[in-house]
């Protein structure tokens, strides 16, 4: 047990009392400060543009899907919540046959957005995704695919990639050299 020490003497002398009174006054004056609470849902908090919220699949500026089903996002995901299957349409373009994200597993880390080479998968600032049944938290491709380009407005992967798809032959991309003619003897 504590013996009669210095701070007991201080309290007896009332010096401690003064600091107590000062604390009471300070807390009383906080009454006149603005309160720090944000009254959700009437007021919304400020969300910065790079805030990692709900995941979407975006489209090209030309309207086609950006996702080439390369599985990089599924590989990068630390909790394995992305599931997809690649397929190829008749014109040489790869696309995901199904694309499923289990949002009850997703930790909104953004690794998939960093891994994606075509800016297809993006994290938006939306966070109001509550559901009553856990099964409703598994989003399919029709829930994820949006009609616009998302955060990156001008990027079209197929313009800079060296593939030949419908409407664009090899050698016609931006910054792309024409393919080498292997039958020509010129260097």
């Amino acid at each position, binding site marked *: 047990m*504590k013996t*009669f020490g210095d701070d007991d003497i201080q*309290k*007896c002398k009332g010096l401690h009392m003064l600091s*107590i009174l000062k604390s*009471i006054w300070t807390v009383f004056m*906080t009454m006149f400060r603005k309160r720090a*609470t944000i009254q959700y849902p009437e007021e919304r908090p400020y969300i910065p543009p790079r805030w990692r919220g709900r995941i979407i699949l975006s489209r090209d500026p030309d309207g086609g899907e950006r996702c080439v089903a390369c599985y990089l996002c599924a590989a990068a995901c630390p909790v394995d919540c992305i599931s997809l299957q690649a397929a190829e349409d008749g014109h040489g373009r790869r696309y995901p046959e199904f694309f499923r994200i289990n949002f009850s597993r997703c930790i909104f880390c953004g690794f998939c957005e960093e891994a994606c080479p075509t800016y297809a998968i993006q994290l938006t600032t939306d966070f109001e995704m509550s559901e009553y049944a856990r099964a409703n938290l598994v989003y399919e491709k029709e829930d994820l695919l949006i009609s616009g380009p998302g955060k990156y407005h001008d990027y079209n992967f197929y313009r800079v990639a060296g593939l030949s798809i419908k409407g664009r032959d090899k050698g016609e991309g931006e910054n792309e050299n024409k393919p080498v003619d292997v039958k020509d003897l010129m260097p």
Partner: protein
Amino acid sequence: MMNIVKQLLVAFGVLFGALTVGGMLIWLERRLLALWQDRYGPNRVGIFGLLQLPADMIKVFAKEDWIPPFADKAVFIIAPAVIFVAVLLSFTIVPFAPGIEVVDLNIGLLFFLAMSSLGVYSVALAGWASGSKYSLLGGLRASAQMLSYEVFMGLSLMGVVMLAGSFNLRDIVEAQRSVWFVVPQFAGFVVFFIAGIAETHRLPFDLPEAESELVAGFHSEYSGLKFGMFFVGEYMGVTLISALTVALFFGGWHGPLLPPLVWFLLKTFFFISFFILIRATLPRPRYDQLMAFGWKAMLPLSLANLIVTGAIVLQ
């Protein structure tokens, strides 16, 4: 005949008033604590969150009335009733306005001190009857704390009694017509107020309940309505101490323009808010620091106050 009707009206009025204020304090405390902590209290349920009180009451009433199998049944049930009865009985002597009090008791102040001593029983019995370690510790600490702070609560009031010449609370209020007793008896006021905070075991003296330490202390095994009774009983104790401080030190119903009852209620409300402000501000001292403060600082102060007052009055 009219006298009896008036007496009955006042008695029921005080009873319902005390219970209502005890209940409203739940809401008021949460809002005021939030005000001083830079946040809002309950403001969703009804205007200003006022419907929070009925919502909480419905929740408390609907809870399962469970008595621990290891508890002492009869004592377990009686303990919250003891504090309720003791506080309500003390309300009978409080003078609200000239002519409005339940009983004009010649030993009013002594009666209040006796009832607050009975209040210690509720805590000790609750701690013991719960049959669990934390409750027992809380009950022991509470009874020791309340007993020691009661000593100088009585002593600090003796100065007021000497100045007024009577134990009757109405005479004490009447004697403050010229100057409120807080001016000559400032030390007595400070000691009484601190002792009052300890008696109702509010912060900073709430080791008995110690929400973050003793797992709610002596009322940790209580749930539902019995816990509600402890809770409301504590708030009624706060109201009682505020009302008594007003009556004994701050002139009771005296005031310039407004009717006396309004003055009394305003001053009581001010002191209740002060209770809540202290709860928002001060940290909780350790148990031995608390006891040391009581016996080594407050008791000598109240004795010195008594001696000085006696010397001046008896000259």
